[in-house]
């Protein structure tokens, strides 16, 4: 072997060792695998729960990471199809999403495990009708093992609140409730100004009092989690929950180090 080639190889070896010691994740593996569960407080809050899950997805996937969205036909019929122009408002672009429509629960579970195991998608969003029954401890344990191997973020979305206590292997569980929307200051001003202008006209004034449709607001409870945050806390979240102390999922092994 030529001296130059030897030096090059040694340099590469040193570089690799330094990288391993520093524990730098390679670009391909963005972060550790994580499994979250998101539930609505009532069946009507399901879109709010989805939006919250999308926010979590956006944090992990960024603007370009791939999101695999797996849903069974029953959920899509009852809750509607994902609508790309609306998703864009939550930072998730249509191009990031691959939608998998499965005929039944069995195919959905199979696709979810497959997707979680793959290192390709940054986020796997799985929803299923009667999720409380299908996402049982054994299934979610399999999901957890799969997502640890794949290194993505798994989001299990329930279309309705659980009828009983849940026992799953998900690392975190959130419960989301839709709140009356928050209007922007400018919108509030026009609303307050309206009755003064039209004080003489009673029906118009009434109509003017009606608040306009504002930015969405949710109440999020963290029912299960790890780390210092106690479970059961409640936070009100706006659409971009910037500044909210929602702890980033941290793997225990890395936290110890």
């Amino acid at each position: 072997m030529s001296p130059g080639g030897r030096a090059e190889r040694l340099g590469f070896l040193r570089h690799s060792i330094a990288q391993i010691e520093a524990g730098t994740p390679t670009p391909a593996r963005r972060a550790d695998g994580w499994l979250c569960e998101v539930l609505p407080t009532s069946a009507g809050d399901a879109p709010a729960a989805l939006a919250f899950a999308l926010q979590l997805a956006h944090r992990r996937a960024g603007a370009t990471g791939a999101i695999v969205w797996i849903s069974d036909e029953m959920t899509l019929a009852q809750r509607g199809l994902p609508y790309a122009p609306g998703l864009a408002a939550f930072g998730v672009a249509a191009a990031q999403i691959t939608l998998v429509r499965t005929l039944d629960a069995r195919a959905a579970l199979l696709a979810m495990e497959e997707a979680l195991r793959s290192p390709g998608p940054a986020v796997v969003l799985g929803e299923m009708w009667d999720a409380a029954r299908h996402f049982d401890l054994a299934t979610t344990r399999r999901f957890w093992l799969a997502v640890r191997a794949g290194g993505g973020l798994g989001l299990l979305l329930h279309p309705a609140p659980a009828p009983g206590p849940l026992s799953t292997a998900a690392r975190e569980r959130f419960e989301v409730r839709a709140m009356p929307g928050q209007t922007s200051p400018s919108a509030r001003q026009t609303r307050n100004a309206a009755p003064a202008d039209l004080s003489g006209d009673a029906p118009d004034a009434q109509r003017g009092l009606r608040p306009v449709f504002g930015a969405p607001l949710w109440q999020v409870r963290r029912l299960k989690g790890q780390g210092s945050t106690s479970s059961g806390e409640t936070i009100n979240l706006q659409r971009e929950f910037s500044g909210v102390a929602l702890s980033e999922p941290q793997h225990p092994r890395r936290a110890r180090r």
Partner: protein
Amino acid sequence: MSRYLSLSIRAAPAAKAGQRLTPARLADWCRRFTPLAATDAPDGVMLDIAGAAHLYGGEIALAVDIEQRLAAWGYTARAALADTAGAAWVLARFGEVRAAPPGGDEKTLRRLFGPMPVAALRLAPATVYGLSQTGLKRIDDLLFRPRAPITARFGAQVFVRLDGLMGRLRHPITPRFEAPPYLVERRFAEPLLQREAIERVLAGLAINLTQQLERHGEGARQIEARLYRVDGVVRRVAAAASRPLRNPAALARLLRERIAALCAQHEDPLASDYGFDVVQLTVLRAEPLQSTQPTLTPTQPALTPTPANHDSATAPNLAFAKLAPEQLHSEDLADLVDRLGARLGWRRVLRFRSNDTHIPEFAVTGVAACSPMQLHEHRRGSVSASSTSLAPNLAAPARPIRLFERPEPVEALAEVPDGPPRRFRWRRVLHEIAAMEGPERIAPEWWKAQSQALTRDYFRVEDVGGQRFWLYREGLYGAETGRPRWFMHGLFA
């Protein structure tokens, strides 16, 4: 006459119509000999064996082989060979020899076909009768006749057929399926029975196939495995990929997924009492695929931080930002999408495509993730995504996050027929409206002549519980309809 009762006789239903060997099924089976096989109604099959016969020990041996195989299934068949399709047709039905001499001149052909009856020209019975009435009974009688009077009386078809027979005109055959751009196959003296053996053969064929693909710088988008059962049934397993593929393991895995999916639907393609004696693997659609240089280092050298100025917190993010979207939609993702597509069927694995329309349900549609225009759309979508995520705004989103495939009728109560709703009942639940915004009027596409659609007035409404809906009223009150109807079209977060 005597009768007796035999207890050992077991009755079985006659072969179903689906199992009978129709010309189409026979043509499919004949593709084990050559890729170009055409049905020849009502009772024949035409094969183009140019360049294929030597694989079976010559043309005569091939014809004998086909006859013997069909005879083994109880069919009487007659195979004949000639330079043109017309001559082969005549020889198979009227000829005394099996093959016309290849490249034969006019004299030889005349000696061969001259004594045959005019019916060999495959003419309508009335024409054959008419010709025989005039004394023209054999092909010899027609060969040197002046053409004009016969054409005037019996039509041009007579001499078109005659020229086809004598090799002056060439009629191409119309194969049932196009010849695939790539085909590899393996033949066995003894039929394969075991599933594992067949899968191993397919995996081996995938390696041969990728070698061919590599030589031409192409990748497979659509592949098909064909399994020829010894009793004449052909099983086909097709799989598609979302990008050109040249990895033998990936190709074999796609087929395995597809076979598993078919087994789940109780249509096991490998189930066989007889076994398969020919296994083919073909590429139905290929696309150019550049070879990529495999990197020597586990990560991209330019993206990894050097040990000297290493910062563990920011380095991965920087590396992440530098990667192009195409790289992020990595090989792994495409692999997953392909496997899911093979397992669940491609109409269940979708990506979104935006369309140039204002009608909400058509503005974005799901298309199969393996459809060809995907890459271009992808890039365009990524650009718009980054622009929206960079500029967050506090305003309420204009479009819902979920849209019902079919808008659901609701009972809405408005103060005036063309005013905003006050309350509505949807899925038997009464919702009191607390806030709303609208209308957003979306007119139907009047430039399309058949459009019977009505104008829609969309309202974004929020009920007292904070749940948000996208309602619309169909039809302009007074102008289009006297009773506007209300529909629930989507849900806001």
